[in-house]
């Protein structure tokens, strides 16, 4: 069967848009249930935390570089650094650590 890249992209885009837009359009009311409210409040923190660790350890050539980037990112974000500074600092840490430890 011949596969068309544009058809692939269309399938991916349609599925992704449906996922994003259905809850936004279907849930018109404020949810009153306290459990559901709390659940949705915690969702972003859990999702982003789960996606960050331990994946960050595998994103670099050596896990220690990822671990140090994680530590640096947490400390900087805790101290109030912005999105870009934290992100750039993480990259810099990995670059420097691997410069020293990787041949």
């Amino acid at each position: 069967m011949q596969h068309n890249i544009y058809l692939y992209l269309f399938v991916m885009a349609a599925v992704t848009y449906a996922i994003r837009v259905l809850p936004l359009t279907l849930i018109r009311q404020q949810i009153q249930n306290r459990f559901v409210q709390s659940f949705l409040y915690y969702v972003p923190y859990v999702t982003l935390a789960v996606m960050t660790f331990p994946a960050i350890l595998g994103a670099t050539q050596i896990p220690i570089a990822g671990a140090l980037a994680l530590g640096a990112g947490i400390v900087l974000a805790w101290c109030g650094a912005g999105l870009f500074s934290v992100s750039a600092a993480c990259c810099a840490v990995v670059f420097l650590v691997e410069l020293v430890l990787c041949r």
Partner: protein
Amino acid sequence: MMYGSSPSSALPAIKARRGFFAAHGDVLREGIRDGAPIALGYFVVAFTLGIAARGAGLTASQGFLASLLLNASAGEYAGFALIAAKAAYWEVALVTLIANARYLLMSCALSQRLAPGTALRHRLLLGYDIADELFGISIARPGYLDPFYTYGAILVAAPCWAIGTAVGVTAGSILPLRVVSALGVALFGMFLAVIIPPARKSRVVAGVVAASFAASYGAAKLPLLATLSDGTRTILLTVVIAGLAAALFPISTAKEEPAGHAA
């Protein structure tokens, strides 16, 4: 409402436009301001994504189109891998669904931050780019979300995401491994910048984040859970941990701001 029904002279039209900016200009600008660092980060991450797209046989313009339509890092990676393997369309659909299912949860969460009367067109537009970081800054706004804040951020972030992918397809292979490796953590840095400040403000959120790190690490090592795809594991852990947190530490229903929301 903002355009009003005006007489046919040109003056009211100008007034109406001024009214539009008066109502949304500041918020739009704030969105662009907060979206700028995201856009830079996106460019870098999309660049590495472009390298994967190239591996799957996509041209620069196809990579551009993919990113413009999808706005999804993990989902795009997974999709490109399947395209490279010449998978069936239904497989691509299923994997995209799994890799991006977290956006379903984010969309549910965001629906609660829209004023009840928010028009359908805003809901359709916001759905275009509920991605991790844009969702993060949108949800961090106090009170109800003004869609124009998110539009401002999308306006700068989405083009950078798409262009970054195209540049990655074109130039990805000339970068040394060291640089690619360093750029690979850019996305995680942005995640940290979204979750850590609220964790500082609320001890419960801090505990939830720490528990999520620990459980995620455990799940990646445990024999049974480790065989699940990253996307599936993310959903499973999100439902379990957020569910437990909601049961143990319900937020106060006294509307508006639950503790921990950054201003």
